[in-house]
C-alpha cells in the first residue's frame, strides 16, 4: 500500500498487508500510526470540530472576556480620558478598604470557620457510617444548600433571627433577655448565612479524603494507646489536610463574592464586595464599581490558584 493513504478511504484493512503464511506478521509502525490517526478522526469531522472550537472560542471571547476587559478599561477611565482616580479613591478610603474589602474578608473567613465546625464532623460521619441508607440521606441533606435557591434559604434565616423570630421568642420566654436581640442586619446574621452555604463545599471534598485514610493507620494509633480524639487530630485530620484546604479555599472564594446573603440578612448594612459594587452601579458610578469588581476578581483568583496548582501537581503525579 502506498504510504500516502488517502484519508478519505473509509476503512483501512487491519492486517498490515499480505504476509506469507507461516511467517510472523510484519508490523509497519509508520503505517499503523497513520491508520490509527485516520480512525480516531475522520478528516471532515475533524475539520468541522476545529471550526466549532474556533466558533465557540470566538463567542466566549466576545461574551465573557470582552465585558471583563471593558470593565478593566472603565476602571482606568476618569471622565473621558485615562486616569487612576477610581483606584486612588478605593485604596485611600477607609470606607472601601476597611468597610468593604477587609469586611468582606472577615465575613467570609468567619463564615468558613463556622461552616468547618459543622462540615468536618459531618464529612467524617458520612465517610465512616456503616449504613448505606444513612450515608445516602446525609449526602442528600448536604446537597440542600447547593440545590435550593439561596434567596429562599436566607428567607428561612430571616424568619429565624428576625425581631419576632424563634431565637428572640425563645430567649424572651426563658427570660434571658428583656428586649428582642437585634441579629438581623448585623454581621452575625451574615456569617450564619454564609456558613450554611459553605458547608457542602467543605464537606464534599472531605468525604472522599476521609474515606481514603487507611483504617490500619488509625487502628495502629489506637492499639498504641491513643484516644479516639488523638487518633482523629494526629492521624486522620493531618492525612486529610489537602482535601480540607481545597474545601476551605473554595468556600472562602464563593463566600467573598456573595450577594444574596449580605443583601437579605445584612439588610444593606453589612457591606461586602458585591453589595458595594451593586450600589455604585445603581448610582451610575461605573468606574468605581469596576474597581470593586476587579479587586474581587483578583482576590478570587489569588484564592483559587493554590487549588489549581495542587490539581496540576496531582495530575502530573498520576501521569508518571
Amino acid at each position, binding site marked *: 500500500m502506498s504510504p500516502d493513504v488517502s484519508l478519505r478511504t473509509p*476503512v483501512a484493512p487491519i492486517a498490515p498487508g499480505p504476509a506469507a503464511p507461516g511467517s510472523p506478521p510484519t508490523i509497519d509502525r509508520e503505517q499503523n500510526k497513520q491508520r*490509527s490517526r485516520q*480512525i*480516531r*478522526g475522520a478528516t471532515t*469531522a475533524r475539520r468541522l*470540530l476545529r471550526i*466549532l*472550537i*474556533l466558533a*465557540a*472560542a470566538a463567542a*466566549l471571547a466576545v*461574551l*465573557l*472576556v470582552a*465585558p*471583563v476587559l*471593558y*470593565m478593566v478599561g*472603565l476602571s482606568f477611565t476618569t471622565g473621558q480620558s485615562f486616569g487612576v482616580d477610581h483606584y486612588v479613591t478605593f485604596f485611600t478610603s477607609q470606607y472601601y478598604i476597611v468597610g468593604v474589602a477587609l469586611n468582606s474578608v472577615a465575613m467570609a473567613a468567619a463564615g468558613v470557620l463556622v461552616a468547618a465546625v*459543622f462540615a468536618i*464532623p*459531618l464529612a*467524617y*460521619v458520612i465517610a465512616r457510617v456503616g449504613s448505606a441508607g444513612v450515608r*445516602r440521606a*446525609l*449526602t*442528600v*441533606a448536604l*446537597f*440542600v444548600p447547593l440545590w*435550593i*435557591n439561596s434567596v*429562599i*434559604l436566607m*428567607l*428561612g434565616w430571616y*424568619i*429565624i433571627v428576625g425581631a419576632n423570630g*424563634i431565637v428572640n421568642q425563645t430567649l424572651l420566654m426563658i427570660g434571658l433577655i428583656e428586649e428582642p436581640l437585634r441579629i438581623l442586619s448585623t454581621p452575625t446574621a451574615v456569617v450564619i448565612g454564609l456558613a*450554611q452555604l459553605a458547608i457542602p463545599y467543605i464537606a464534599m*471534598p472531605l*468525604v*472522599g479524603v476521609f474515606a481514603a485514610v487507611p483504617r490500619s493507620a488509625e487502628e495502629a494509633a*489506637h492499639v498504641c494507646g491513643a*484516644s*479516639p480524639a488523638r487518633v482523629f487530630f494526629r492521624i486522620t485530620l493531618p492525612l486529610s489536610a489537602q482535601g480540607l484546604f*481545597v474545601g476551605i479555599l*473554595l468556600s472562602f472564594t464563593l463566600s*467573598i*463574592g456573595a450577594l*444574596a446573603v449580605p443583601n*437579605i440578612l445584612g439588610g444593606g448594612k453589612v457591606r461586602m464586595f*458585591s453589595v458595594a459594587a*451593586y450600589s455604585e*452601579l445603581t448610582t451610575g458610578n461605573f468606574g468605581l*464599581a469596576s474597581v470593586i*469588581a476587579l479587586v474581587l476578581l483578583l482576590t478570587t483568583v489569588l484564592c483559587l490558584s493554590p487549588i489549581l496548582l495542587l490539581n496540576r501537581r496531582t495530575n502530573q503525579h498520576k501521569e508518571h
Partner: protein
Amino acid sequence: MRPGPFTYLTVAAAAAGIVFILLPLFIMAATAFNPTAITFPPEGFTLKWFGAVLEDARFVRAIIISLVLAVFSAAVSSAIGLIVALAIRQSKSRIAEHLSTLMLSPLFIPGALLGIALYQGANALFGTVPLGVLLVGHILLTLPFPVRALMAGLARIPTSLEEAAFLSGAGFLGTVWHVLLPQLRLHLFAGSAMAFTMSWNDFDLSLFLSGTRVQTLPVEIYGRLQLGADPSITALSLIVALVSVAGVIILDRTIGVAEFAGMERQGPRRTPGGRQRSAPSTPSTPSTPSHPQPDSGVLTP
C-alpha cells in the same frame, strides 16, 4: 474501636450540622401555612397563600420567565457543552484545552462579577440592558456544568469503541449518535439538570441583568421581601424549593448524588446507573486500582 465520648461528640456535631442546613427550610415552609404573617410558630393552618401566589400576576410572570430562561439556557449550554466536550476529546489542540478552562471559569468567578461586566458592556453597546443579555449571562453561568459532566462521561468511554465503530463503517456523526450519545445519556441528563437548577436558582447575576419589568423568580422574591412580606412569598418559595428537592431526588435515583459530586473518589465505583444495568451490557471498563477513572466531579474542582 468502641464508641467513646469523642465519637458521640462527632455525631452530635454532624447532627447539629444537618439541623443547621435544614432548619431554615423547615421554618420557611411552616410559615407558608400560617394564616396571619411570616412568623413561627404558625397560629393556624391555611392554604390560602398558595392560591394568592397563583392570583398574583407578577409572581406568575416571574415563574414563567424563570422557567423559560432555565429551560432555554440548559438546552443551549448542554448543546454547546456536547460540542466542546467532543472537540476536546478529538483534538489534542491547545485551543481546545484553553477553551475548556475558559468555559469552566464561571464556576468560580462570582455571579455578581459576571453580572457587573455584562451590565456595563450592554450599557455601552445599547444604552440599556436588553433581555438577551440576561439569557447570555445564564448560558455563561450554566455552561460549566454540562461541559464538566460530558467531559467526565467521555473520559470513561474507551477510544477503542469509536475505533470499532469507524472500522464498521460509521462516519463521525454516526459514531456520535449510535456509540457515544447512548453512553453519555446520564451525563447529558445530569449536566443539563444541573444547568437548569443553576439558572433557576441564580440571584447574583440576575439582579444586575433583570430590568424592572422582567424579573426572575429569586429577584422577584427578594424585591417583595424588601416591600414587607406576607406569607405568599414563603408559599412561593416552598413551591420553588420543592421543585429543587424533586430535582435532587431524581438525580439521586438516576446517578446517585455522591457519584455526581465526585465524592466517591476511592473504592469500587459503579458506572452511572450501573446498578440497573445487567453486567454484560455495561460497556465501561472495570475499575482497577491501577487505572483510576476520572470522577464525574461536576462540583469539585
